[in-house]
């Protein structure tokens, strides 16, 4: 697998590290991780450099993950790049909202590395 440039957006630095570790355990190698502590930072990263995959929390202060996703699509940032939401919100309604906003995947916290592998790797194969 070629280098996978991955943007992880979460206001928790601990969760960003945990997601990175799960991606590595899932076999994403070589993996280049770009971190953003807010949606605004995430948009700035996407304006500055290309990525192959985006993983974002939903429940964040200021701009939540769904609005972040809408902004990505509205501004045509990262066209064709799969976005996976990682969140504690797990209802069908939340999943539907994420899909409508343009997400290709949804992972509920807490998660295992195996779940990350199952949800993320097929998206990269398709992309």
């Amino acid at each position, binding site marked *: 697998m070629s280098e996978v440039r991955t943007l992880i957006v979460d*206001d*928790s*630095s*601990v*969760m960003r*590290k*945990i997601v990175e*570790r799960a991606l590595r355990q899932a076999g994403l190698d070589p993996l280049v991780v770009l971190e953003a502590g807010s949606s605004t930072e995430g948009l700035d990263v996407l304006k500055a450099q290309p990525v192959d995959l985006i993983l974002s929390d939903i*429940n*964040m*202060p200021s701009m939540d993950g769904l609005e972040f996703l809408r902004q990505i699509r509205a501004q045509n940032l990262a066209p064709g790049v799969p976005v996976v939401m990682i*969140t*504690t*919100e*797990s*209802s*069908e*309604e*939340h999943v539907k909202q994420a899909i409508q906003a343009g997400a290709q995947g949804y992972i*509920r*916290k*807490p*998660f*295992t590395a195996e779940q990350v592998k199952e949800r993320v790797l097929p998206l990269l194969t398709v992309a």
Partner: protein
Amino acid sequence: MLLNGVRKAAIATPGARGQDGAEPAMTFSLRDSLHLVADPANLDASVDEVFRLMLGVSCERAEGPLAPAPESVTAIVGFGGMLSGVCVFRCGADAAMKVAEHMTGMAFTMLDDTVKDGIGEVCNMLAGTWKGRVPELSARCGLSVPAVITGTDYILRVQAPEFQLNHFYRFQGIGFAVTIVCDGIQ
């Protein structure tokens, strides 16, 4: 996701259709299912799931109260919507550092921002997992971002809650407490 009695109760509600046979506006009250929402087993299962998946450890219920600690950490996540209240995670500083160590694989010697961040995330996942066990609650109840308080000698007090679950747990000799306080339910 577990399908428990709340969804079944909603489906089985009499008079689900209007006189013209059209779908009526969905009215749902958690109050009729308070015993399910307040089921202590849901909290135990949520704690077990979060600690097993995110920290790789098993927890067991323990007797309270927590042993006195020179400094303690409290994380709070608020519920809003059909149910209002808070999820509170409390532990001593040493326990907080141990939790963060299990989450990140890093060792900590002080209550730094990473430790506080980790405890806030644990509380966030506990709150989300707990409400996710009642599907109608999951969809109609939002979570606040976590707030983390550190200090000594403080007491959480809520006036006349609808219900309160206050459980103590232990893993690898470390104690912590998880409290769900519901102060309003629709």
